[in-house]
């Protein structure tokens, strides 16, 4: 399926009348000939068609700030209205695009690609059609509004919209879906097994599936032994993730992926859990919007309203929201993904000066053919993909290639904006723990991590390594539904969750202690 779509894309490129007007005439004639042979057209129609000249469609001018988005809207309109209406009604279409953000994204993509080519000259290509490409989509998770759509590097060179048309392997961007499934399953079973602080072995292992075996390896073949789920996701550990997925099961993971918004069929084999499936960046944006929107999936809403020349409203697209996963589960994964930016593979975003509360995940495919970064603040989800249309290897990770573009864009659009936090939903409690033991932190613990727990599953024991028996640090309860004094707690501790790591003494970072 993937292969045929890919072949089709390549054919479109080869047969483009814009690039290869000499090739299109023989192809046109061949198709007409076959149509005549099959009886679809008469010989007269065939002769008449042969005499017609091919006039390439005029591309939107370079002044158009959002040519890919315009194409996207045009396609949506053709599916909704007959050609006669589109030609004569003089439709006025109110879209969700934000031109300020669109301009910022364009600059970020252009500069980002130029910097990559400058820093890694091997990425440069002389043929414009083969140049390094990138795409970016930004979506408001609460409304489904598509704020930005950059479908490629240069519309005049390639009209192929990589946001909606390019099916690419996800790589580690898919891992949060595995963790989401594990945490939500655990929530249903209440067995107290998989929590962010739960341990899982990050060691080489082999997954036997339907008579075949699969041995996922870590980056640089380094294995960390027993790690918490949090650390496994923050550092994007393949072996630990695959082991977790084996426990959870492929079908539930696939089901979760569908629930959050992936529509492309995912492979039926284990490597799916490490992102072997091919999806569009658009799907990724929808899926992570569901996480950002407390588990409620919104229908993408590029068009808000369509009216005719006289102002009569022909169609109105309101906010469509459906709760597809529990808000608590969505928050747990978001909280883990905040750690990716704070301490994990996405920490370069912080090093580059992006300070707003955000969650994110890097993604790199096996052959370095695709570099992803998806990250979100509470009100904006942004997906960046970098790669070659010809699927050549970049030799760069998502953190190296896509993250700088994401950071540049997000810094621009959040500059001067208030810093909004992710708010834990009811049923989730933030508890300071000792990251080494996973137990409640005490005043003696050198490092404290504020971890999210489902209510009732918080660790009860004080840290046994740093002063068991000492009164634990007060829980930062966010929802604490069973306690009427919640209001005072909220007021007393604003901004909880902003700085999950609270160093007490200057020691090695906790993630280096294992």
């Amino acid at each position, binding site marked *: 399926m993937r292969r045929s779509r890919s072949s089709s894309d390549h054919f479109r490129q080869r047969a483009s009348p814009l690039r290869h007007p000499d090739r299109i005439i023989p192809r046109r004639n061949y198709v007409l000939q076959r149509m005549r042979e099959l009886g679809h057209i008469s010989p007269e129609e065939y002769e008449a068609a042969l005499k017609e000249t091919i006039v390439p469609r005029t591309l939107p001018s370079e002044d158009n700030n959002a040519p890919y988005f315009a194409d996207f809207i045009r396609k949506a309109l053709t599916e909704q209205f007959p050609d006669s209406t589109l030609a004569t009604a003089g439709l006025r279409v109110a879209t969700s695009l934000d031109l300020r953000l669109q301009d910022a994204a364009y600059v970020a993509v252009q500069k980002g690609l130029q910097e990559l080519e400058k820093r890694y000259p091997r990425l440069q290509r002389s043929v414009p059609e083969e140049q390094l490409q990138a795409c970016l989509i930004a979506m408001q998770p609460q409304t489904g*509004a598509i704020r930005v759509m950059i479908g490629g590097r240069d519309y005049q060179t390639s009209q192929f919209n990589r946001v909606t048309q390019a099916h690419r392997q996800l790589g580690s961007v898919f891992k949060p879906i595995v963790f989401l499934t594990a945490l939500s399953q655990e929530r249903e079973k209440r067995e107290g097994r998989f929590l962010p602080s739960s341990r899982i072995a990050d060691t080489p292992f082999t997954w036997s599936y339907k008579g075949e075996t699969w041995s996922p390896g870590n980056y640089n073949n380094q294995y960390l032994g027993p790690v918490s789920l949090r650390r496994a996701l923050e550092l994007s550990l393949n072996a630990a993730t695959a082991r977790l997925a084996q426990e959870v099961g492929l079908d539930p993971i696939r089901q979760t992926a569908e629930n959050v918004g992936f529509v492309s069929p995912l492979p039926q084999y284990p490597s799916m859990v490490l992102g072997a499936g091919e999806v569009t960046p658009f799907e990724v944006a929808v899926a992570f919007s569901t996480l950002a929107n407390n588990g409620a999936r919104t229908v993408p809403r590029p068009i808000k309203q369509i009216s005719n020349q006289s102002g009569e409203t022909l169609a109105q697209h309101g906010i469509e929201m*459906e*709760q597809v996963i529990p808000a608590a589960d969505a928050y747990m994964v978001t909280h883990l993904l905040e750690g990716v930016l704070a301490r994990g593979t996405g920490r370069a975003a912080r090093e580059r000066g992006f300070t707003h509360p955000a969650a994110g995940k890097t993604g790199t495919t096996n052959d370095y053919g695709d570099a992803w970064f998806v990250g979100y603040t509470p009100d904006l989800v942004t997906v960046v993909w970098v790669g070659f249309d010809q699927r050549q290897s970049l030799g760069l990770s998502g953190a190296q290639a896509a993250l700088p573009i994401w950071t540049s864009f997000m810094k621009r659009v959040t500059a001067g904006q208030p810093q909004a936090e992710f*708010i834990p939903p009811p049923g989730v409690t933030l508890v300071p723990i000792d990251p080494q033991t996973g137990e409640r932190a005490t005043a003696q613990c050198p490092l404290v991590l504020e971890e999210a727990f489902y209510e009732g599953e918080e660790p009860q024991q004080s840290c046994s390594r740093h002063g068991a028996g000492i009164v634990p640090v007060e829980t930062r309860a966010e929802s604490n539904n069973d306690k009427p004094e*919640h*209001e005072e707690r*909220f007021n007393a501790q604003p901004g909880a969750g902003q700085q999950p790591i609270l160093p007490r003494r200057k020691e090695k970072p906790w993630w280096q202690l294992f």
Partner: protein
Amino acid sequence: MHYVKSLAIAVVVLFASLLAISEQQPYAQGRFAREPGRTFDEEDLAPDSRSIAPEDESANDSGDEERPDSTIADEEQFPDRDSQTRSPMPSMEESPSHSSDHDAASGKDSTDESPEESPIVTSGPPTLPEANSLLPQEQVALSFVTLGVEAMGTEDLARARALFERAIEIAPLQPYSYFFLGRLALTREEHQKALPLLRKAEILLTRGDQAWRSEAVSVQGAVYEDLGELPQARKAYRKSLRFFPQNLRAMSALARLAGEEPHSDDVVPQ
């Protein structure tokens, strides 16, 4: 413990009996979304939260000091309440969330109602925050919410929906637009649409006004009640009271549900 439980049940029953008298309580009647041709009135548009009457005037005054931003419910809204027991707060007209002509729309005549002696006073429904305390884009969003509430008052539901959605686009982390959009969905009997919106409002109010948060949960209870999912409705109402124990609407709903189908857990947590 037993004494407290008994006292709580007594309080709930008392409230329920008082509310049964009043025909102006859409929540007390339940399933308000199913009433054909029902118009919006002030109470629909402004989440209700009333406090238990203090024993004396001084206590009443102190209650006002605790909630300086509260506004008093007007006589039309709570006609069964003794005007002598109201707290001296700004009138509803001052609140941007309430249109002053709503009663004309709802067809109510407040003068027909005879006030009764009641141990309950109204501390007023939670009002929308003062615009000058908000960020510019939140101010704009709030103005859209206000216009949406007015549109609801005139039964222009399509316009109200568009205004609330516009408010969400402008300030997606402001809870009030979700709340009213959820209310609107409930009115249209779009229960599955209402729930995520109301939950979203509840989450966004976690660190905000607990009376509003309580109201968002209380309306979730109304959704469940409409759907016939009474255990879920009870759970929501009880939760609502945890956030704001003075939410009389949740109390009355709980009492009503307890009457319909006795449940050992239908006790207001103290």
